[in-house]
């Protein structure tokens, strides 16, 4: 009997505590990112579909169709063909198709490539009207878009707040009142501090 009475009071109190917690959350800002009006920050190592890389000196794709990526792929997504251009020492790629409807973004192809001819892009904004649009012709993409250099930290669209992965230049100092913090620390803190309740 006494146990039941005690339970009524503690139980009722627990309900009030729960109500108080949700009321506190009611007055906090929303954590939603209003996509597509606001965009997300894409980290540098994001795995979008792969893309061909241009050689910085010649401007031609590094890939010479050795087909290691094709052999490494678990899902048979890649179609590569190459041909030897007159007067060149090596083959160069003429066709590179990625069947993105099967790709699982595992990265086996990127790892298998010994030359660094392919890398992950940061494309996440993909939409199409038919399945055929996702048989990506990477060679044509390379030709039509002005691609960046081998540097993997090229800024991408939708990433206005992108920062590079440079570690802080000096070791963390104990915070002294009034002492301005180093710019890199502030940048790193601003990146991770937003959105914490």
């Amino acid at each position, binding site marked *: 009997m006494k146990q039941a009475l005690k339970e009524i009071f503690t139980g009722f109190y627990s309900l009030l505590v729960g109500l108080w917690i949700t009321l506190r959350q009611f007055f906090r*800002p929303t954590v*939603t990112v209003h996509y597509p009006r606001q965009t997300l920050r894409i980290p540098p190592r994001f795995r979008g579909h792969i893309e061909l890389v241009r050689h910085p000196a010649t401007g031609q794709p590094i890939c010479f169709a050795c087909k290691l990526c094709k052999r490494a792929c678990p899902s048979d997504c890649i179609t590569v063909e190459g041909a030897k251009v007159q007067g060149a020492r090596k083959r160069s790629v003429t066709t590179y198709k990625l069947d993105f409807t099967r790709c699982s973004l595992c990265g086996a192809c990127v790892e298998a490539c010994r030359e660094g001819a392919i890398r992950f892009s940061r494309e996440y904004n993909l939409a199409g009207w038919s399945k055929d649009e996702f048989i990506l012709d990477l060679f044509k993409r390379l030709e039509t878009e002005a691609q960046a250099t081998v540097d993997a930290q090229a800024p991408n669209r939708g990433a206005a707040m992108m920062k590079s992965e440079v570690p802080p230049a000096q070791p963390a100092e104990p915070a002294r009142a009034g002492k301005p913090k180093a710019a890199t620390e502030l940048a790193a803190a601003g990146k991770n501090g937003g959105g914490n309740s």
Partner: protein
Amino acid sequence: MIQALEKLLSPLWPEPLRLVLFVVGMVLFVALNAMYLVWVERKGAGRFQRRPGPTEVGPAGLLQPVADGIKLMSKQLIVPAGVDSTLFRIAPLLVMAPVLMSLAVIPFGQDLAARNINAGLLMIFALGSINVMALMLGGWSSRNKYAIISAARVVSQNVAYEIPMLLVVITMAMVTGTLNLNEIVRQQSGPFWHWNLFRLGLNPLMPVTFLIFYICMLAETNRAPFDMAEAESELVAGAYTEYAGMGFGVFFMAEYANIVLGCSLATVLFLGGWQSPIGRLPGLVWFLLKMYFLVFSVVWVRWTFPRTQFYGLLNLSWKLLIPLSLFTLILSSAMLKILRAL
């Protein structure tokens, strides 16, 4: 303003015209409330969950209920083969009609009651029981196992919670000495400590009485944490599973209309109705303020707590609320006796 209008029209038939105006007004009030309480609930749910809620349709999502209404009305009213067609079609109407009728006796402001019936409180509870029957009919006629289980649960839940509710209302009727809602509100005039909630001299357990009434109101309207009838994760949509389009829409609207009715009744009985604590704004504004505060608390409770079990719900009613409300009844009758003797 109403009196001016009445004076203007008094050479004509005063009573029927006034009634017609009130009926139209009430139907509009219920319809608007049902639509926009959906918006309040979704926005409130969003804010409790730290997300925006509807924002796309109209500014701040205000046209979302309109879009939902258009969607529901444009859907085919499917009547599955093998259902009991009369009962299936009547059930939504039976859920909506008593609410509209009950709202006729609630005083929204000074002189703003459609009908000043001496037994107003009795009428509301008489009509309230039809709600239960309508859900039972809806579930039964759907000929769907989920719907039938849900209908059976609803009946036992509502019957169990009607008893403490009526006991509480009897306590209030005893304390105030009348069943006339206008009279009850008039007795609470003055500063806010004259409200029935704070009149501990009449019933020392008045806040407990209010709490019991509130819990019973949640259970009668099948709101969380007592929403066994529509326990989505167990029974899909419960009693409403087979209803499509506007049939479902009417059930939905009736639920919100019931909440409005319940909160209005709580305001009238406990929080002073249209009485203003500072004597400034018109009574209607205060009534609406108090009522919508209670509605907000209903939404708040829904999004905070998980669902009780079915037998937990019944245990709560039969083993806790009924003894407690009986106790408050006896206590207040004892207090009245003592006060009269003094």
